[in-house]
């Protein structure tokens, strides 16, 4: 009998590999657990889940959670269904965010008069030229015209603010938003119907006509609810209905995706059924701190009446400005450094030095940027002859936005540089080989290919800016404000500032309930922004190879 050790191939030890696998698994579990505990903790307080009875939990488990898990189990092995469900969910989320952002930016911050003026002088010429460019592909002056609209438009708009603002006032706010949002939205819907779903011209036009018809037909219904103004209703019709309608249409047009419709049915049906069952059984319900009142009311000394509204508006105001500044300066810097800056010789050394500096700046603590903001935007006085620059005011919207922009600018630059570097050199060569100038190559090859990466990086960096507290404290932003900031030079408070203030109030109700509600609001905004970044990235990655 031959010994077994002689005939075998022998054994190779895997002990280290298995140990390493175990350790890395444990590390990832710790991270996920920490996040789960944090979320559970704040959600528990924010939604007052302690008040809910066992019946409530059982009712919702049966009507909502179990069917949802069943759907997940079903979709897990069917990629088309999962993709359809993900698309429905993603577009609903994006539509919700878009509606929310539009209401805050166009209705609350800008107001109908300012919005109407800049719509007429900037957006309408820009979009009109873009559409003409799509229709007449041979007109090469269109691009220049669009750039002109972006540069000249704001100047004309600012000069004509008085006249056009009066015109907007005559039209009334609902009239303004009907003209500027509903009608272009109808055009967009008709275009999508024809372009994406291949409908005939007549049917596409019918799809487009649905939007203004629904908008007008809904007005008497909306008037029953004083909480929803007509303008808000118009925004909802356009900003929520178009993305959701697109996702629904896209799912409906692919037969193998039809089971994905089960997801909205389960969520909405399960929720309604749960409400009904809980009501019928008379189960004790949770008492959420985070409710409609919390989102729409100003802060108060009484915890039950406290709201986050001015801080939400302040945060969105900040984010819009920060997005504008960082996108323009960050992407501009990245394009220059990657495409124009010399890479050899003494100037190449300077370029490398700048790159290293930007990397270092990305690691500088935010409180240092706060100090910088305090120094150059608040506590400063420079006299150049008759011109006096005395800062932008303590804690104003503009000072806050510029400080936060400085904070995330290095991150935006670095991520944009990465995205630009990932454009294959063969495409640049192809463009140069066709006799394209450097600018033509950048515009037609480099920017389109790197835009998804640039957008993703910018959105993630904005997520960081929205959660920052230290720089805002340093530039003396308000702890608490009872009305939202109405202009660039008014003092603001932002969500993290307000939460920070609440956390130090003596009452327990503030320190636990209200703070948790604020944190959850902030988290929802942040996670939604991150999901939009992921959606953008996935969408374009599929298209680019």
């Amino acid at each position, binding site marked *: 009998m031959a010994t077994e050790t002689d005939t075998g191939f022998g054994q190779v030890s895997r002990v280290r590999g298995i140990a390493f696998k175990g350790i890395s698994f444990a590390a990832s579990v710790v991270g996920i657990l920490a996040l789960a505990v944090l979320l559970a903790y704040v959600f528990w307080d924010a939604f007052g889940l302690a008040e809910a009875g066992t019946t409530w939990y059982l009712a919702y488990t049966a009507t909502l959670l179990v069917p949802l898990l069943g759907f997940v189990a079903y979709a897990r092995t069917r990629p088309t269904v999962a993709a359809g469900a993900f698309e429905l969910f993603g577009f609903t989320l994006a539509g919700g965010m878009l509606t929310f952002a539009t209401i805050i930016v166009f209705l609350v911050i800008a107001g109908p008069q300012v919005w109407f003026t800049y719509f007429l002088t900037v957006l309408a010429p820009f979009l009109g030229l873009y559409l003409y460019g799509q229709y007449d592909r041979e007109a090469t002056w269109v691009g220049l015209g669009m750039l002109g609209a972006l540069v000249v438009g704001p100047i004309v708009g600012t000069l004509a603010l008085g006249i056009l603002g009066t015109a907007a006032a005559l039209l009334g706010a609902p009239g303004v938003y009907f003209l500027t949002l509903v009608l272009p939205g109808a055009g967009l819907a008709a275009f999508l119907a024809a372009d994406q779903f291949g409908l005939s011209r007549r049917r596409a036009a019918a799809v487009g006509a649905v939007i203004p018809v629904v908008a007008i037909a809904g007005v008497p219904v909306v008037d029953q609810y004083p909480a929803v103004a007509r303008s808000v209703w118009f925004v909802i019709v356009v900003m929520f209905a178009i993305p959701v309608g697109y996702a629904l249409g896209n799912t409906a047009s692919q037969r193998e995706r039809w089971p994905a419709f089960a997801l909205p049915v389960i969520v909405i049906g399960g929720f309604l059924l749960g409400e009904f069952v809980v009501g019928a059984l008379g189960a004790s319900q949770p008492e959420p701190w985070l409710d409609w009142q919390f989102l729409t009311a100003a802060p108060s000394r009484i915890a039950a009446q406290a709201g986050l509204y001015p801080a939400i508006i302040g945060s969105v105001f900040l984010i819009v400005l920060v997005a504008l500044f960082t996108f323009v300066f960050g992407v501009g810097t990245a394009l220059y450094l990657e495409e124009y800056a010399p890479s050899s010789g003494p100037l190449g050394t300077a370029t490398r030095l700048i790159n290293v500096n930007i990397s270092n700046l990305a690691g500088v603590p935010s409180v240092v940027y706060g100090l910088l903001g305090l120094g150059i935007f608040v506590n400063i006085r420079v006299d150049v002859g008759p011109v006096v620059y005395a800062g932008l005011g303590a804690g104003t919207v503009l000072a806050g936005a510029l400080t936060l922009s400085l904070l995330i600018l290095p991150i935006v630059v670095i991520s944009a540089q990465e995205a630009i570097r990932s454009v294959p050199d*063969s495409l640049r060569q192809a463009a*140069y*080989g*066709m006799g394209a*100038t450097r600018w033509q190559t950048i515009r037609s090859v480099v920017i389109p290919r790197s835009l998804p990466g640039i957008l993703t990086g910018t959105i993630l960096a904005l997520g960081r800016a929205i959660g920052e507290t230290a720089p805002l404290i340093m530039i003396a932003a308000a702890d608490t404000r009872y009305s939202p900031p109405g202009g660039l030079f008014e003092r603001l408070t932002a969500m993290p500032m307000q939460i920070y203030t609440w956390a130090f109030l003596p009452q327990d109700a503030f320190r636990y309930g209200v703070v948790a509600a604020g944190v959850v609001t902030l988290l929802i905004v942040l996670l939604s922004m991150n999901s939009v970044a992921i959606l953008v990235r996935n969408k374009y990655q599929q298209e680019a190879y």
Partner: protein
Amino acid sequence: MTTEDMATEQDTTADDDGTDSLITTDPGKGGLDENADSGTVASAGTVIESRDLDVFYGETRALQDIALQIPENQVTAMIGPSGCGKSTFLRCINRMNDLIDICRVEGELTFSGKNVYDDDVDPVALRRRIGMVFQHPNPFPKSIYDNVAYGLRTQDKTDDMDEVIEESLKKAALWDEVKDRLDDSALDLSGGQQQRLCIARAIAVDPEVVLMDEPASALDPIATSQIEDLIEDLAEEYTVVIVTHNMQQAARISDKTAVFLTGGELVEFDDTDKIFENPESERVEDYITGKFG
């Protein structure tokens, strides 16, 4: 920036009055008269001529004293082992080497009688008259239509664009395969189709010369033979300069062949038949018969 803009203007004016001059040059200086004296393979229609051309990458000398004349409306092949500088020479013709920081060119390389390395020559304007096809198919991630339209749009030649695009795709033997899906992404095409699309893109702007840098090396044999047929057709209208690794390919499609050997020297340049049947240099014979390389 300003030089590029100026080039655009100059190029447009050149197109309008139909002259061939890259930049207004003195007809007495340079040009065809000199070719007859210096050329070893004197040909009436020489388009590109190099004299004492040296190329350096930093300290490394990639090409040494290259002198050759590329005839009009013929296929000229460049063969040789890897690293012999044949691609470098090709990239000198339309100054693609300018994009490499450490690359330095000395000597003279004339196109239509004008030294392309003169200070007053704009490389962008030059490249608009010399098309290029690369080793790996590199269509833009845009639609098929937009790919062919790219050069037309960058050069403001947008009159009758649909017709020009159809014509170019037909010349590139691709029209029948893509005519029903011009709006589809070019990346959905097969490798061979992508390469023919790149050829269509290059000839859409009606260049005088088409440079091809191993255009079939990344393709399968069937796609390769399609490209080869296409190159022979193209030579009726364009001057084609092709770099290839494949000696049989050079023998099949080219009229003239230049053999580069290691060290960046041009060992022999002659009619293709002569190079392959009766080369003068022993090294060339060794290379062609497969003794090395």
